[in-house]
């Protein structure tokens, strides 16, 4: 016993204070926040959890009708092509936009009680990941339907099994960008409005409603500059068997992810405590 301190608070802004032990101690908070999110989204709604599928299906129908005639998508069945793009994109967009508002929307909580701040964006991405998983299962069922009834050929190769790489990397990039922007939007309110606008524009630089193969050579570089591009193509290549994936571009996406993720964690942690004074 004696004078043994268990914790210490001082002025230093620590760079890596999230020890996993602390996060682990708060895991139940994470689960209950995710649970709360689902309860809040679907309570007192007529369709309830069916909204998780209803929303992308309506988007799918819109895209087929609007873009179906305009943009050549190759030989894939349009429903499969668009739906795979839509769900991956929604996963990216929703988790990015929501986590970029972490400080803005949780300031009341953050200024009243301490818990590892990163729990909030993690719960955001977990929620959207679960939603995405359900949509992914629907996509797989849809693929099976096309394979059985519509004569759609699936080739099971090694590549088929790498589709988790695509959405895991997309998720990490989304979370990282969300963390960075959560700090920026807390400092500069203006940016928050810009975030959703930017995201909408980014969609057109990502192969969501078109395949990379249909992009004219002149514009190719812009789309490839987007680190999400290879991941979306990889997602389609693995699940649907059609996609333009090259090792250099994919490496570029992975390196981008490996660089941005620790940067984002560092930035979020470094500024987390200071921002409470500013907001």
């Amino acid at each position, binding site marked *: *016993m004696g*004078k*043994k*301190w*268990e*914790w*210490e*608070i*001082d*002025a230093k*802004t620590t760079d890596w204070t999230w020890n996993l032990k602390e996060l682990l*101690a*708060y895991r*139940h*908070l994470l689960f*209950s*926040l995710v*649970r*709360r999110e689902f*309860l*809040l989204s679907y*309570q*007192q709604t007529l369709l309830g959890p069916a909204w998780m599928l209803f929303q992308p299906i309506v988007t799918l129908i819109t895209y087929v009708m609007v873009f179906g005639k305009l943009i050549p998508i190759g030989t894939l069945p349009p429903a499969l092509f668009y739906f795979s793009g839509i769900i991956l994109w929604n996963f990216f967009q929703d988790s990015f936009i929501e986590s970029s508002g972490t400080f803005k929307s949780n300031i009341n*909580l*953050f*200024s*009243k*009680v*301490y*818990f590892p701040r990163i729990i909030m964006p993690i719960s955001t991405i977990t929620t959207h990941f679960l939603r995405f998983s359900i949509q992914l299962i629907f996509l797989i069922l849809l693929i099976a339907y096309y394979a059985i009834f519509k004569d759609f050929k699936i080739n099971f190769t090694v590549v088929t099994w790498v589709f988790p790489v695509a959405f895991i990397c997309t998720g990490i990039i989304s979370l990282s960008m969300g963390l960075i922007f959560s700090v920026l939007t807390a*400092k*500069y*309110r*203006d*940016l928050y409005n810009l975030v959703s606008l930017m995201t909408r524009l980014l969609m057109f630089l990502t192969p969501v409603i078109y395949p990379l193969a249909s992009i004219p050579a002149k514009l190719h570089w812009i789309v490839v500059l987007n680190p999400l591009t290879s991941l979306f193509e990889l997602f389609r290549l693995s699940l649907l068997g059609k996609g333009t994936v090259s090792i250099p571009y994919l490496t570029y996406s992975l390196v981008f992810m490996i660089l941005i993720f620790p940067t984002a964690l560092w930035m979020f942690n470094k500024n987390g*405590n*200071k921002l*409470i*004074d*500013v907001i």
Partner: protein
Amino acid sequence: MGEIILEVEGISKLYRLGTIGTGSLKQDLNYWWTTSILKKENPFFQMAGSDSVKTANQFLWALKDVSFEMNQGDTLGIIGPNGSGKSTLLKIISRIVSPTTGTIKGRGKVSSLLEVGTGFSAELSGRENIYVSGYILGMKRNEIKNKFDEIVAFSGIEKFIDTPVKRYSSGMYVRLAFAVAAHLEPDILIVDEVLAVGDADFQKKCLGKMREVSKTEGRTILFVSHSMQAISNLCDKAMWLQNGKKKDFGEVSSVVSKYITGVQQHQLRQSWDNIEEAPGNEFISFKNVELIPHLKSVDQPLDIRVPLTFKFSFWNKSDNVLLSTGFHLFSYSGECIFDIPAAPAYFNKGLIEGECTIPGNFLNDGSYFISLIIVKDTSVQLYYFEECISFDLEDYRGEIKWYGKWSGAVRPNFPFRLSKAEDA
């Protein structure tokens, strides 16, 4: 007991007042462009000349070099006027904001209750909220499970536990929220004025629960309140913060009585020796304003029972004027409690004095300020001396064991009797 559980050493917190970094992106870009690229002075502080750079970059020490220690089982009350750094200190110990300098070392789990209902969502049921809020406050799954029934019983809302809390009355909401908080089992509990909520019965329960927690379970409590009664009731020790500095620390009774007399002295009188510097104009100049409490002894607190005499004197600078004065009493929120005019009379040049007494047992507890208006010919304003006196009236409840805010602008002690009219 007796072992040191919390050591606060030289804690300071600096806030920037004329902050440059909190504006819009445009402002920051502009700042960066002018200072870094054009190598000019700060664009935002140039209007009023070079001196303004100093004043605009004002810093505020919300806390300055505060140190203290707490042993296990101590209950420490933190008192001080608004803006003295009480809440900042609690936030630093709770790890919500980080200190500018200094260190805090401690042992065991810290829980802070800076507000009632942290983490509650209106849409969720009481049951769900107990879990979410419990987790946010740092409880473990098993802790909540084991105490769930106890929490529900304490809050007294068994019937509504599966109803969304948005359908609760505000009293029920507060009771449930406090019930969760009361069943935290931290080693150090930090409480910021949560007692000012709920009905009388529930408040008694809360104070009782807190006392029980500290006395029988040996938990350490830090408690901020403006109610000297609650502090005296609950705490063994007290710390008085004034302008971010520790002014006194020690046994609760001595600190509280020093605080009460200390606050009394510096707000209750103003006088001017030099007529040039005194407030006034070409018609009148003030000599002195004073509020004299009729205390029975020196250390009696200035509470609602004390009669107060407001005295003032001013120089009248013109002959043969019909003068009158109006004595305005305002509550801290700016509401006028009363406006008492003095009967008009003719005066020549010279010193004029006046006084008016507010009887004891008339005003409610709270903060007040007095403004004085001087009027010529019953309607022409000569001078309005705003907020010349400010004072706080402490609460006094006597035998009534209820600590909620007593409502009403005044609390007159009119005779009020209950008697039996008929046997059952």
